[in-house]
Structures are given as structure tokens and as C-alpha cells.
């Protein structure tokens, strides 16, 4: 493989890994807990900005970019801080968006948050360098490793892969646990969940915060490899790309979501963005948005459950696998007519 090709492939793989992480985060919020977080990309941006300003060092007084804080903390401190800031900010947004609102209105508040965040980052120039954004963001461990640019790319592919495994471990633990079940119960019927003693607000808040931390994590991984980060990198439409990935792959199913992440943002967007096309500049970008919209429509019409739908979590109820019942009195009425019930249509 030529080194240009290797570079291309490595970048695609890194982007793919980051999209995977982001999609799992969004799936935890939307697919599992039913929180329609239309501001997801803003939390990725929060992670990206935090990691950037904590690794770039102080802004130069006569420099071309101005931003607040500005520190050069060693790896992996910027990433950890990004994750924490993502969590805290998600919590603050959730206090406003999730409280006392129906879930469709929650989605609108979150969308508005995304727009407001873009406006603030664009217009408060001294905050995060306005619409020009931040640039020359250093690569983590670059000086320490002292690799050629191409070798560093492959190092980062491995690093992203490890990050993916970590993210997958977290979402799998959460979704496969009683917490995941409680979140899915809130998603399916919030009133019934509340009537069974579940605090719906707290349950959604957990999903928003953990998902926000995962979003920020993906942003912190993304920003050094892009090298620059500006409001145009995280317009609200980017969230819709991730939603398209969830819908196509199969929301609620971590593997389905992974498939969606490979297909939509991974191959389809990142892949085609490197195609040399000689017609009008911006043509491919524009077509991509149209195709994303059509894709969402077609999926919702023809396969609303996605390519790999959420599957029932079956438990083998064979008595040998279970401890002896601690409530034998409950079983006393177990009847021989079971099969009768099964055979009797309603």
C-alpha cells in the first residue's frame, strides 16, 4: 500500500472508531433510555474544545487565536477532563431539558441548546476563538513517541481501537444490567415505570450524563487528529447523521448501532469526503445531506426496527439454573392448565 493510501485508510479507521463511540453514546440515550438528544454533537464539541484548550498551552498575547484557560496538561489528563466536563454539562442541561417536560419537548429544548451553544462559540471570540475556531492542536504523546507521521497515524488507529473497546465495555455493562432494563422500561412507558417506583427524571438524567461523557470522550479523541475545531465542525445537522446511523443499524442494539456507524458516518460520509470530484465544489457535501435525509425516511418506512433490531433478552427459566424458590407460597397455584392458556386465543 502506498503511504498516501495508508494515510487515507488510517484516517478512515480513526474516524470510524470515533463514530462508533459516539453512536454507542447516543444509543444509550436514545435507543435505550428514549432521550431524543438532538444536542448530542454539542457534547462531542464540548469534549473536543476541553481537550484542545487543555493541551494547547496558554494563548499567545499576539497570537492569531484567543481562548480561555489554555494549559498544556500531559496525556491523558485533557481527555479525562473532557469526559468530566461533558458529564457535568450534560447534567446541567438535563436539569433544564428533562425536568417537567414531555419527551418531544425535551428534544426541542436540547435542539435549542445545540443552536445556542453554536452561537455562543461563534460570537464570543475570546472564549474559543469564535468562528475561526482553534487550530494547531497538538497530537497526544507525539513528542514522546517520536514517530514518523504515518507511523503515528497507525499508533492512533490502535489507540482509537482501545478507546472503542473501553466505550463498548461501558455501554455493554450498562445496557445489559438491571439499570439498562430500567432505562428501557422508562423508554417504553414512563408512566408505568413511575408507577413501579422508578424516578423517570433520574433515570433519563443518568442516560444523558453517561451518554454525554461518552460523546465528550469521542470529541477529545477526534480533535487532535483533525488538528482544528470550529463551530462549523459541529453544526446540529451532524447529530442527525448519528441518528441516521442508529435508525439504520437498529437502535437499542449495540451491535446494530455499530453496523450503522460503519455504514452511515463511517463509510458513507467520511469515505466519500476524500473522493476527488471535479464538478462544483461543495457538490458532494450537498448530495450527502439529501441522501442522509432520504435514508432516514426509507428506513422509517420500510424497516423501522433497523438492520439488526433490538432482540429480546431471553432467560432460561429451567428450574435447575435457578436457586430454589424463596417464595414457594407464590407457586402454589401453578396450574396444570398452562397449556390450555397457551392454546386459547383471546
Amino acid at each position, binding site marked *: 500500500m502506498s503511504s498516501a493510501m495508508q494515510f487515507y485508510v488510517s484516517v478512515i479507521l480513526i474516524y470510524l472508531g470515533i463514530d462508533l463511540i459516539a453512536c454507542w453514546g447516543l444509543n444509550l440515550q436514545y435507543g435505550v433510555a428514549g432521550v431524543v438528544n438532538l444536542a448530542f454533537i454539542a457534547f462531542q464539541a464540548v469534549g473536543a474544545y476541553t481537550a484542545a484548550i487543555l493541551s494547547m498551552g496558554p494563548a499567545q498575547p499576539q497570537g492569531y487565536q484567543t481562548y480561555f484557560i489554555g494549559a498544556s496538561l500531559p496525556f491523558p489528563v485533557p481527555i479525562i477532563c473532557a469526559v468530566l466536563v461533558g458529564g457535568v454539562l450534560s447534567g446541567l442541561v438535563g436539569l433544564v431539558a428533562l425536568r417537567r417536560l414531555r419527551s418531544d419537548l425535551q428534544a426541542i429544548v436540547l435542539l435549542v441548546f445545540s443552536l445556542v451553544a453554536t452561537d455562543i462559540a461563534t460570537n464570543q471570540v475570546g472564549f474559543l476563538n469564535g468562528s475561526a475556531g482553534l487550530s494547531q492542536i497538538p497530537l497526544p504523546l507525539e513528542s514522546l513517541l517520536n514517530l514518523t507521521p504515518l507511523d503515528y497515524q497507525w499508533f492512533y488507529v490502535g489507540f482509537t481501537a482501545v478507546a472503542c473497546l473501553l466505550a463498548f465495555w*461501558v455501554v455493554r*455493562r*450498562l445496557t445489559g*444490567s*438491571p*439499570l*439498562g*432494563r*430500567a432505562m*428501557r*422500561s422508562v*423508554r*417504553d*412507558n414512563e*408512566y*408505568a*415505570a*413511575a*408507577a*413501579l*417506583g*422508578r*424516578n*423517570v427524571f433520574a433515570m433519563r438524567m*443518568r442516560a444523558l450524563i*453517561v451518554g454525554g461523557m461518552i460523546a465528550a470522550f469521542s470529541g477529545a479523541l477526534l480533535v487532535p487528529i483533525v488538528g482544528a475545531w470550529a463551530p462549523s465542525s459541529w453544526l446540529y445537522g451532524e447529530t442527525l447523521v448519528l441518528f441516521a446511523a442508529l435508525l439504520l443499524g437498529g437502535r*437499542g442494539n449495540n451491535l446494530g448501532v455499530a453496523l450503522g456507524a460503519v455504514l452511515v458516518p463511517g463509510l458513507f460520509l467520511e469515505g466519500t469526503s476524500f473522493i476527488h470530484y471535479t464538478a462544483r465544489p461543495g457538490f458532494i457535501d450537498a448530495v450527502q445531506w439529501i441522501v442522509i435525509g432520504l435514508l432516514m425516511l426509507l428506513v422509517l418506512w420500510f424497516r423501522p426496527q433497523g438492520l439488526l433490531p*433490538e432482540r*429480546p*433478552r*431471553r*432467560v432460561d*427459566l429451567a*428450574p435447575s439454573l*435457578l*436457586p*430454589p*424458590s*424463596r*417464595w*414457594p*407460597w*407464590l*407457586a*402454589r*397455584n*401453578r*396450574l396444570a*392448565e*398452562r*397449556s390450555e*392458556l*397457551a392454546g*386459547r*386465543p*383471546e
Partner: protein
Amino acid sequence: MTAPGSGRADSGRAGDVLLEVTDLRRSYTGVHALAGATLAVASGSIVGLIGPNGAGKSTLCAVVSGSVPPTSGTVRLAGEDISGMPSYRVARRGLRRTFQLSSEFGRLTVLENLLAGAAMWRGESVSGALLGRRFWGRRERDLIGRARDLLGRFELIEKANDYAGKLSGGQRRLVEIARALMGDPKLLILDEPLVGVSPWLVERIGQHIQQLREDGVTVILIEHELGFVERICDSVFVMAQGRVIAHGTVEEVRKLPAVMDAYLIG
């Protein structure tokens, strides 16, 4: 009008008052859905709540269980004032309800529906979930054992691993009742559990409800089918126009002029 519920339900059972509702009011922009409802339910009894459409039965259920805050009045559960408390906290105090429209968790299996009905526990915290099965597996197995027993009792064991959303209407009702029982309720409010249920299953549900008494669960049954209420309940409260207008056995209240008026005039 009689003054109902002035103390214990005269169901003939010795039991402390479990639920005490005093002058409960709830209005929706000028409509008085509850206009001073008062009743008391003795522990261990099965009481019916009947009345014509629009009498306020479901609103009473919603306010008592915390889904809707009252405009005024008090609700006491086992002596504790729970008026205006959000429904998840009411549920944690041992009051569980089912809904008029079936409210199963459609994309959870029947077994998961029941497990989701267990009282909140440490496996549902983020840290508990991250610690993994070794941390929560043991209690989960206990809960599965318990759910299995309940599914056996409600004759749903073969549906355990099916999505609850795919069950028939009657089976969904059973899932809801079983799910509510997973949390060891003191008081169970069943809001029209017979809607859309086949006659054969109606009898089974009746038997299940009567068995709850032996398990020490107090039941409030909101139901239109008076024959069923008469067979199952110790006594009934009759509601009309947001108030409780009578209390007694079905036989007794049937003869009261106020009740006849309410049913005829609405």
C-alpha cells in the same frame, strides 16, 4: 347524600385503615373531576370503586397514586401523608396501580416486565451496573426465581421470553398485575382490569384478585362490570360527580336512591 367512609370500611374485617382519602379535590381548568372525595379502605380488604362514566374514579386513582397532584385534600397511606407526592415515591411506599389502558413495556420480555416491577435496587445504579454481574447477579437470580413463581401462578410461564407487546390484551393485563406484585405492594389499585379480556380470563383474573387477599395485599378495584365486583369485593364505594356518594355491599348500595339517580342521570 350519605357521609361515606367515616372511619373504617365496614367490610367486617378487623384491619387498620390503610388508605384514607379526605376531601380530595382536583379540577382541570374549571372542571371538578374530584369535588371532595372521602373514603377509607381497611387493610386486607378488597373494595370496589364504581360509578358512572365521568364520576372521577380514574382521577381518584391518579391522584391517590401520585400521577396527578390534588388541588386540595389529603391522602394518607398507612398513616403517612402522601398527598402530592410524585408517583415513584408513592410506589416505593407500597402503593401500586395498573392502568386503564394496558401499559406493558412492549419491547421488554414478559419476564423483564416483571423484573422491572421489583423495588428499585443497587443493580440499577450506574456504579452497580458497571461493577457487573458479580455485583448484582445474585439478587437478579432471586428476582428471576420470584418472577418465575408469579408467571407460573398467572399461567404466563411459556410467554416469559416473548416481547410483552406481542401478547393478547388479556395476557397483558395479567402481566401488569404480576408486575405490580413484584414490588410487594401493600395496596394495589386495579383500574378496569377487565377491559378487552375474554370471559374465560375474567374468571381467572377474579380468582387471582381474591388470592391477593390471602397474600395480605389490599385491593381497590375500579370496574364497571357490577356482577364481577359483587363476586369479588367485600364492599364498594360509589362515586358520582367527583364525590363518594355511598359505601356498602353491592346489594346495599343498589337500593339507595342516590346511587340509582347517579347511574340514571350520570
